[in-house]
């Protein structure tokens, strides 16, 4: 008799554990989806969109100028972190190159030096030529570039995401650009 109850009690404990396991799994699904929402949102709607950097007159031919834009995906409490800078190079009045501000090494902000025609990074000394190609230092590649287009006298770029070395969507320097 006592043996039987022991077995049945054990069975009840087992049943209870199984029941709790099912409940835990049910609760875990929304928790996981909540935690993964920064990834799933990208897969559903994407983060990037076409943004205006302003009229073409701001970017004289043959020069490289700093431009800023407001990131398309922002919250009201993001403050100034929603403002992003980029470098716009006007080659000849017709064609452009728009470089991300982030060094291709570890993302620090590169600075343009028109005197030596180089982009220099303050963190680990990466250097790039005016066309974004890697010149020296630790970066493995050239500067990240944004796709651009010109509409109604305005320069648009496709942006919305911080470029990092692991993100393949960005064309390497000198690669495909849509105009």
């Amino acid at each position, binding site marked *: 008799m006592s043996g039987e109850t022991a077995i049945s009690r054990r069975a009840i404990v087992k049943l209870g554990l199984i029941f709790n396991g099912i409940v835990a799994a049910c609760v875990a699904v929304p928790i996981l989806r909540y935690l993964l929402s920064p990834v799933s949102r990208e897969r559903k709607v994407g983060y990037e969109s076409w943004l205006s950097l302003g009229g073409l007159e701001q970017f004289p031919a043959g020069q490289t100028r700093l431009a800023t834009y407001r990131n398309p*995906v922002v919250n*009201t409490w993001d403050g100034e*972190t*929603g*403002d992003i800078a980029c470098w716009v190079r006007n080659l000849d009045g017709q064609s452009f190159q728009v470089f991300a501000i982030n060094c291709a090494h570890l993302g620090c902000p590169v600075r343009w030096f028109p005197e*030596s025609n180089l982009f220099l990074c303050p963190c*680990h*000394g990466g250097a790039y030529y005016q066309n974004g190609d890697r010149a020296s*230092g630790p970066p493995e590649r050239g500067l990240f570039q944004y796709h651009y287009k010109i509409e109604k006298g305005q320069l648009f770029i496709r942006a919305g995401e*911080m470029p990092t070395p692991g993100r393949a969507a960005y064309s390497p320097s000198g690669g495909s650009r849509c105009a």
Partner: protein
Amino acid sequence: MRLIEKLGRWVNLRLPLEAPIRETAEHRVPRTSASWFYVFGSAALTIFLLQVVTGILLALIYVPSAGEAWNSLQTLNHGVSHGWFIRGLHGWGSNFMVAVVLLHMVQVFLFGAYKFPRELTWMVGVFLLLMTLGMAFSGQVLRFDQDAYWGLGIGASIASRVPVIGPWSVKLMLGGPIIAGATLSRFFALHVFVIPGLLIAFVGVHLLMVLKLGINEWPMPGRIVRRSSYLQEYHELTEKQGVPFVPNAVWKDILFSGFILVLIAACAAYFGPFGPGGQPDPTIIQTAPRPDFFFLWLYALLSFLPPAAETPILLLGPVIAVAVLLILPLVAGEGEKSWRRRPIAVLSVLLIAVALGTMTHLGEHTPWSPVMDAWSRLPIPPEYLRGTTSLERQGALVFQAKQCHNCHSLKEQGGKRGPALDRVALRLTHDQLIRQVIQGGGNMPAYGKNLTPAETTALVAFLETLHPPAQAPAVNASRAVAVRADSEKDSTPAQGDR
């Protein structure tokens, strides 16, 4: 007095803690362990308690919002009575905590305290070290200034290099596509809830193990740890020659903890809080981001690793380091404890200390970074221009205007990225100088497209003057031969004509 006794008895009957507290206080420790070398663990615990208290105090004012965090730090520094001091205590406390935890670890390693039966205590300690470093990094993020912003960018760039899941992990780390409000919120949750919660749990386990297993005895050369006999030997050591923990050992712990607290308070009062630095506005690019002191060695390492090796070392290095630390007590759980008989252990500690120290020193001076304003701020030393021709002076002008000075120093002034050029004419001949300027190479960008032939000629003419007066500049011997041959060839037909 009787009232207190009565109250104590009343409480103890309902919350029977007297026996375990008495047992803890009176437990016997080896006489040799009541030493000044055994105070770092308790000091780390004391600093952790200080961090909890000051952290809660800061949370009364701090706003974990990307738009407001920087302003709330300014309020803490300037608008709240002694807010600067509380920030100073928390910031200096964090530096001291990393330092004391490292000292504790070195002591435990050199005294062989990780050996049987304390292997698991060491392993838990490794996780405590990782959590301490995690607190240091996430705390630096909460000080939401330019360094924090770009530091997150560095973290995201490293995370993005993980194969397959790299881009996802960036988004999970940042909480979105860019460094913004969601990023700060999740680092706030990590720094204030997740890691401290884990720390408290792991510290509890760590302490419990120290109490249950007993503190490590002073290692004697030749006294070998064996799994079969150690427990018996330790028991005899504590029972026969042991002393009660309170008061024989604890007074040194208390005194040292108090000393560390005084040091932290003195640093906070004298040096003040850390930052915040510039506003976290990514459109302000006139900045040179730098991590806090304990990550400077990593910052330096990142600039010296060759590009091709960087990603594998960056991703595998930490994994291997942690694995080695975790496996250490399992492979070296027995044997000699004393550092006098463990030369490799001592050398390893020295090697790591020298490497980290050198890297940190380099991280403070960043010789790999161009001095961005050297070309406009630093003059060419006048003695280098004395008695030069107008062409050479023109070259000096090119040297400044094309920003060579940003990477190359003259008389110790200027960038350290490239070699100093004070004696460059001894190293490179005229032709080699032209080639180096135009084609670059050896980590120097090529300036061929950026210099006119006239500018290159002038620049090289100036560089050729850079040698000590008593030493002749380098010349290409074969060129002299070629020039002579040329001139002979020119003159030979003339002779033939005769």
